[in-house]
Every structure is written in C-alpha cells, then in structure tokens.
C-alpha cells in the first residue's frame, strides 16, 4: 500500500483540509478500525453537515427536558404511553410520505385518502353483519393505495408536478369521503364507529407485560444477530466492516431503548384498576419500519428510489423504469396512509368526515423532514420518519399537557419544521459546493 492514499489537494486547499473532508463524507463504519477512531470520524462527519439522526435526537432531548421542567407529569408512564399512541399515526403517515419525498415528490392527498380507506373498513365492520376484519382491513388498505397509484400514473404519464396533482387529489378525496360516508352511514352526522375489538386494540389495547419483554428481547436478538452476521460476512470477504466494538455499542443502545419502552409500557398507568403493557401499535410500527427499511435499503427497487431522487437522468440512462418506481412510490404512500387511517380510527374509536386530513398530511411531511428526509429527494431513511413523528407528537402532547391551545401547537410545529428544512437545505448546499 502506498502512503499516498489521500487524493492530491485541489487548488487552494491544504492537504489537512482535504484529508478531513474525505474522511468526513464517508460513513465512519467503513473507515474506522476502532471505537475511538469511529467516534472521531463521526464527529468530523457531523461537523461537515452530514449528521444523520443527531440533530433530531438532540432536538428531541431538548424538547423533552423543556416539557418535563414545565410539567412533571410529562415523563409519567401514563403520558408516555399516551404519547406512543399519538405518535403512531403521525409516524405512519410520515413513513408514507418518505416514499414520495425520496423521489423529490410530495403527496398532499394521503391525509384524506387514509380517511376514505378507514371509512370503508369501519363500514364493513358495522354490526349486525360485519365482514371478517382482515377483509375489511384489506379493503381499507387497497382503496388509498389504488388512489395513490392513479395519482402516480397521472403524474408520470402527463409529466405534471406532484404538488398540484396531489392537491387536486386531496380535494377529490375530501369530496369522495363525504360521498362514501353519506352512502355508508346516511344520517349519522358523518361518523362511523369502529366496532371491531381487534382493530380497537391496536391503539387502545396492550400486550401483556411478559409478551412485551419477549417481543423486545426477540427483536433485539434478531437485529443484533443480523448486524453481527453481516459484519462477519464482510470480513470473510475481505471487505471493510465496522469494528466489533461499534456494532456491540449499537446493539447495546438498541437493547436499552427497547428496555426503556417496555419498562414504561409495563408500569401501571391505571388510576382505579391496574393498566399495564406496551400498546400493540408499537410492535406494529416496528414491523412496518423493518419491512420498509428492508425494501428501501436491501432491494433493487429500493435502490432505485434513491437513484431517481439523486439523479433521475442517471437512473434513466442506467435503464431504470422511472415511471414504474414513481407510480409504486405513490401507491406505497397510499398503502401506508391506509394503515394510518385504520390506526387513526383505532385511536379515535371512529372515523369521521371531520378528520383534519390537510393538517395531518403537513404534520407527516414535517415528521419526515424533521427526521432527516430531504425535500429535494434522494436522502433519508424510514427510521427518520419515526424519530420526526415522535418529535411532532411530543410537541403536541407537551403543549396540550401545559394546557395551551391550538395556536402554540401550530406555531411550534412551524418553527421545528422550518428549522428542519433549513438544516436540510444548508446541508445540501454544503454538499454541492464541496
């Protein structure tokens, strides 16, 4: 090996700077040999603007501390479980938005298409002759997915901006929601109750404490095993792999997070009767995050989401079918909206035409962007939507706990969203100038 592995400095930069720049942009995983070196590279990388989940985690900690200082009930088990159920639907809608944001597109309609899907689901479950709930769920997922897919077809075929098409889609969805509701439950005041206990339990029910521990332990073990096996396969093939200490640290952090969630969930939060357990929605979201992350990170189609978002022309020249991926993105956003609609109905116990779909979709975009998903396409992870969704939920939950109304909730969310977009745009500019 030559010692001249650094690229020769370009004009007007000294060698040191170039060295640190090169180090900065590469993932520390593949460069570091030890934990110490990993930390050093990571710090350099964060300084260069490519900070991953750090800003959102720091922001979250700051906001949590603020609310805890203002109201000591904030970190109580009861409120934190409440927070999980509130965050769930924001997170889900945010994950739907990730698919389209990765392509540099946006979908404004999913706040209402989710409600249409949920209306179908609730309608099919109304007694006295309810359909089997899995079928009702499938219908509730299929309707928004098809709606999204059709929007995608219009956007790709006619080469229209997704902003306008999905804005039209939103208005259409509001109209359809009123129509469907009117047909399904005439004279009900625009509301259908969710009668199915299985679906109500998503947000309202909880795993038994023991089941919580088992699910958590199995999840951490599986994830840890995946990491370790992957590293070993890379080492066996003589490829750079993250140092074992780093992987161990990751697994430990994951285990700690899991234990904390289960401990919170298993603390008695009942007033008169004991209520314990992690809400079912938590493992549900876990499964969806893992599935979507696998899709985006480990499959060919997922790779194309990033390629198209990064450089559509390069993707086209590489023979990638852009239309297919774009339509798939809008359909997946719709599908995820369908899941969110059912979770939202489970949260409220009913579905209503008064659903704030426009506001919800903006919260979803905010969640994704706060979680590091770029509005310009090509950058971001599913996990980002989870973290961003939690931030948004914490703001709402905390301000409500302080007895503040809607006004500061909107303004706080606006401030956080703006901050996230500024971070996104600045990082992007930083990258393009280097």
């Amino acid at each position, binding site marked *: 090996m030559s010692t*001249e592995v650094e690229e020769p400095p370009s004009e007007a930069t000294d060698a040191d700077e170039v060295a640190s720049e090169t180090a900065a942009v590469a*993932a520390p995983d593949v*460069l570091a040999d030890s934990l110490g070196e990993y930390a050093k590279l990571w710090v350099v990388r964060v300084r260069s603007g490519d900070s991953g989940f750090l800003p959102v985690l720091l922001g979250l900690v700051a906001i949590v501390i603020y609310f805890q200082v203002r109201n000591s009930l904030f970190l109580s088990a009861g409120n934190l479980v409440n927070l999980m159920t509130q965050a769930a639907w924001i997170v889900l809608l945010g994950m739907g938005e990730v698919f389209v944001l990765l392509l540099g597109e946006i979908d404004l309609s999913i706040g209402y298409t989710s409600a249409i899907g949920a209306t179908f689901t609730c309608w099919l479950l109304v007694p006295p002759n309810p359909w089997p709930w899995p079928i009702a769920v499938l219908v509730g997922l299929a309707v928004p997915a098809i709606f999204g897919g059709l929007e995608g077809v219009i956007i790709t075929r006619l080469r229209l901006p997704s902003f306008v098409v999905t804005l039209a889609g939103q208005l259409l969805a509001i109209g359809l929601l009123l129509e469907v509701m009117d047909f399904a439950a005439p004279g009900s005041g625009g509301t259908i109750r969710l009668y199915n206990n299985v679906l109500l339990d998503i947000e309202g029910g909880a795993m038994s404490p023991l089941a919580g521990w088992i699910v958590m332990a199995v999840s951490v073990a599986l994830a840890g095993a995946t990491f370790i096996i992957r590293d070993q396969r890379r080492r066996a*093939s003589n490829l750079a792999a993250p140092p074992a200490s780093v992987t161990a640290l990751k697994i430990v952090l994951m285990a700690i997070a899991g234990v904390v969630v289960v401990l919170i969930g298993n603390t008695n939060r009942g007033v008169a009767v004991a209520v314990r357990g992690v809400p079912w929605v938590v493992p549900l979201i876990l499964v969806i995050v893992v599935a979507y992350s696998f899709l985006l990170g*480990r499959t060919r189609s997922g*790779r194309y989401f*990033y390629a198209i978002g990064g450089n559509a022309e390069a993707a086209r020249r590489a*023979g990638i079918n852009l239309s297919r991926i774009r339509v798939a993105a809008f359909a997946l956003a719709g599908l995820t909206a369908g899941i969110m609609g059912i979770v939202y109905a489970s949260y409220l116990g009913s579905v209503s035409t008064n659903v704030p779909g426009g506001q919800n979709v903006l919260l979803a975009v905010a969640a994704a962007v706060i979680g590091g998903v770029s509005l310009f396409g090509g950058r971001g992870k599913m996990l980002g939507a989870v973290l961003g969704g939690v931030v948004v939920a914490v703001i709402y939950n905390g301000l409500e706990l302080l007895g503040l109304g809607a006004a500061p909730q909107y303004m706080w969310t606006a401030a956080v969203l703006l901050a996230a977009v500024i971070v996104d745009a600045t990082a992007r500019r930083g990258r393009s100038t280097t």
Partner: protein
Amino acid sequence: MTNPSADDARPATAGRASAPDSDQPPQAQETQQVQAPAIADQAGAQEANGADGADGSQPLLSLVDVGKNFGPVRALSDITLDIPPGQVTAIVGDNGAGKSTLIKTISGIWHQDHGEIRWQGRPVHLHTPKDATDLGIATVYQDLALADNLDIVANMFLGQELVRHWQLDEIAMEKTAKQTLADLSVVTIRSIRQPVGSLSGGQRQAVAVAKAVMRQAKLVILDEPTAALGVTQTRVVLDLIGRLKSQGIAVIVISHNLVDVQSVADRIAVLRLGRMVAVGPKSQFDAESIVDLMTIGTTRRLVGEPAEPSRPAGQSSGSSSEH
C-alpha cells in the same frame, strides 16, 4: 498506402516538435498518408479498411460514409473512420463540428441517415443505447450520469445490481467494484462506500470509467473527460486512459484540449463542420496543424507540399456538392 511507410514517415510538421532527424522525402509520403482517409471517404469501405487497419488487424469499429441530418441541417457528412483496437483515438473539432453527433451516433442515441457502422467487420445497426452497450461500446458523457447520493458501488452497478435471495448482493458488488477500480489503479479513493458526491472531479470521472469498463466494454468513449478538471485531476484522468489502453480497450476521446490530446492519443481525427478533414497517427500532427484543420479545414503545412496540393480542401468541397 501501406503501413510501413506510415511508420517510417516523419512529417516536417511533427518533426519540428519531436523528430529532428526527418528529411524531405518522408514529408511527401506523409502528406499522402494524411489524405488517405479522405480518399477512402469517396472510394468506400474497402479502401478505408485497407488504409486504416493500422497493423493489419481488423478495426474494432468502422464508420463508412456516415451522415446524419437534423431536418435541413447536415450535422455529419460522409464520415469514414476506423477505430483500431487497443488504441486511443482523439476526435477534435471546434464547437459545432459534429463531435457530439458523431459519438451519439456511435452510442446508439441517434441512428445515422446515411452510411454504415461496422463492428469488428460486421455491419451493425445501433438504434438504442442498449444496442451499443450490448456490443461493448460504453460512453461516458461529460455530465457522467452519477447519482451523488449513492456510494461508488451503487453507482457502478446502477441498473445492473446483483441480487441474491431477493436482496442486493452487496458483498459481491463491492468486491467486483473494488477489483475494477484496482485494475484501473485508482488508489486515491479511500472507501468505495463513500457517496460519489464527495469525490473530486477526477475521481468521479474514474468511477464513471470504471462503471463502463466493468461491463466488459471493448470501446470506451469519453466525452470531454478533462473539461472541468484542474491540472492534477486531469493527470489522473489521462493516466486512466493510458491504463484502459494497456488493458486492450479501445478509447475514443472527445476533447477541446489539444495538450491533452497530444499527450494521450495514438491517432487523431479532426472534424470540421460535420466533415472529417484529417485522420492519422498523432505523429502527423502538431498543435498548429490541428488548429488549422479545426478552423479552416486545411493546413498549410500539409497542403502546401508540392506533391499533392490542396487535396483535403478539394475533397471537402467536392463531396459537399454531391449532396
């Protein structure tokens, strides 16, 4: 016009720059040699192959009387050019000379309106970029077509990902990418898992070339590979071209930079207003004669010789009146 005479001949023009031992008689031979392709232009493919099959081997790619129109605009007229295997052919010309049209025709983006393209002696029809890629023609455009947000491995395999058990086979892809870069002696890249957006211009060019080579290219076309690069990075790219050549890959370089052309090319083809005004080994040209050919289509140094005055110019005007 046989090959030995071409090798022996030292034109006065090149002689001034590099070969002080040249004398008058070879100059005369040289003049004819330069014009040989122009004659072949008219005479057709047989002679073109005979004249340009430099060491007797078959040219990898032959263009025979290729023409391309865009409506009334004649972008290319009667281009006859042989690309020998394992050599670097530079195509030079002023803006609008038809360089881009020519390489886009070779890469299957546009199909020629006249003439024939032969690959290893066989006539081929390149209607889509895929037709060209399937033959082993890889084109690296000036904009490189890399996704900045993806890492080097992902970019090199974009559209051709290896899949195993429904998953991307990252390990196999990374190994292949690593090997390809190593074969090209690209050592300045620290980690092939870094996003392409973080690379320098020369490194990006190297990745784009490696991507082309990895797909078993026999001919790599580089469009202005050094246009946006500084001195050091240009060096990197020129070295890279040399290594492609040493691997037996034919290279076509489009360039404005005559210094780069002189340093890297084995053969030079000069285009002017859609016509090939001169083709020949690098030794037949110097910077001044290339500039003359690019701008006025002829050069005093060549046409001024008593043997065959003004043949290229006459040839040009003759064939334009044909159409």
